[in-house]
């Protein structure tokens, strides 16, 4: 209860009933469906574009979208963070970017209004995948010495070494995946709650007789915030991808 408004509980905002088979392995709800749609859309766009690119050099239709996506990852993310040698990571980063972007977009699609990433499961899984990817890259490029290079920065005086090694270990192997997941999750959840707050405000003004004259105020705010959330959805997908690129790029070479 805030100012006499009946605000829904958090379970009501983020937990959706299953379409079928509640509790079984094949169960599906709105959030699971959004993940399936995101995966299908991404695979669809890039496979169709790839099959068309064999016969046609000038892009059109779906192929344009695919090429814009690939060039965005190449120029906007890989060149800025990993350099030329990171070009091989394009498919990985592009998959993560597309998946996060499309599941985020469901936040503002009318009638759906639920960002898949507002549940911890998706960000946590993606963060674990990125975590495995950057540790794997480190071991591949530097051998087992990667762990030593990662937690012992060069040029640290001997007395400080245990402390620095502990801090580096925690920040590299524990805080990185945690903050990666929490950043995406909390941003989307906050956006979702923000939109819900203004919807609740609009709804209760509508039912309050003459107070309905104030209805345009929260409604205009709601429309503006929906635009803002469109930006946040894109920005969070971008930040998630660029951090994944930075982490993978940083484990390619030892600090010196």
């Amino acid at each position: 209860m805030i100012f006499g408004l009946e605000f829904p509980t958090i379970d009501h905002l983020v937990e959706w009933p299953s379409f079928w088979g509640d509790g079984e392995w094949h169960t599906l709800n709105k959030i699971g469906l959004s993940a399936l749609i995101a995966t299908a859309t991404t695979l669809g766009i890039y496979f169709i574009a790839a099959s068309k690119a064999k016969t046609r050099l000038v892009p059109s239709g779906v192929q344009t979208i695919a090429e814009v996506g690939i060039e965005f990852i190449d120029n906007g993310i890989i060149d800025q963070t990993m350099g030329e040698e990171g070009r091989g990571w394009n498919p990985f980063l592009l998959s993560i970017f597309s998946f996060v972007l499309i599941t985020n977009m469901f936040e503002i699609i009318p009638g759906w209004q639920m960002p898949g990433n507002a549940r911890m499961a998706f960000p946590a899984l993606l963060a674990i995948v990125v975590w495995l990817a950057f540790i794997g890259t480190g071991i591949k490029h530097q051998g087992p010495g990667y762990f030593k290079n990662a937690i012992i920065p060069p040029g640290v005086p001997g007395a400080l070494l245990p402390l620095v090694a502990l801090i580096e270990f925690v920040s590299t192997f524990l805080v990185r995946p945690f903050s990666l997941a929490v950043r995406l999750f909390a941003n989307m959840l906050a956006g979702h709650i923000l939109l819900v707050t203004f919807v609740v405000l609009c709804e209760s003004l509508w039912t309050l007789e003459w107070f309905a004259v104030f209805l345009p105020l929260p409604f205009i705010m709601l429309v503006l915030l929906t635009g803002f959330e469109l930006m946040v959805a894109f920005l969070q997908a971008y930040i998630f991808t660029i951090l994944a690129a930075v982490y993978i790029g940083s484990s390619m070479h030892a600090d010196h």
Partner: protein
Amino acid sequence: MELLAQIAGEDQIAFGEAVSAGFAYGLAAIGPGIGIGYLVGQSVQAMARQPEAAGMVRTTMFLGIAFTEALALIGFVVFILLKFA
């Protein structure tokens, strides 16, 4: 304070949770607020002084915002946990 004590008498735990949830998020927002403001301000200055480096500055700026903002978001998660969990 008497009013607070009166309310607290009814349901001390819920009261404590609500108050500390409010403080948790409020305090967590101060540092990142200052940090992001300073960071973006300096980045804009850098871009204005050297427009040809704007792309690089922007990427680094977003990275910095992401790291700074994480603290505020963890505060938000603590708020959710205290208030609803």
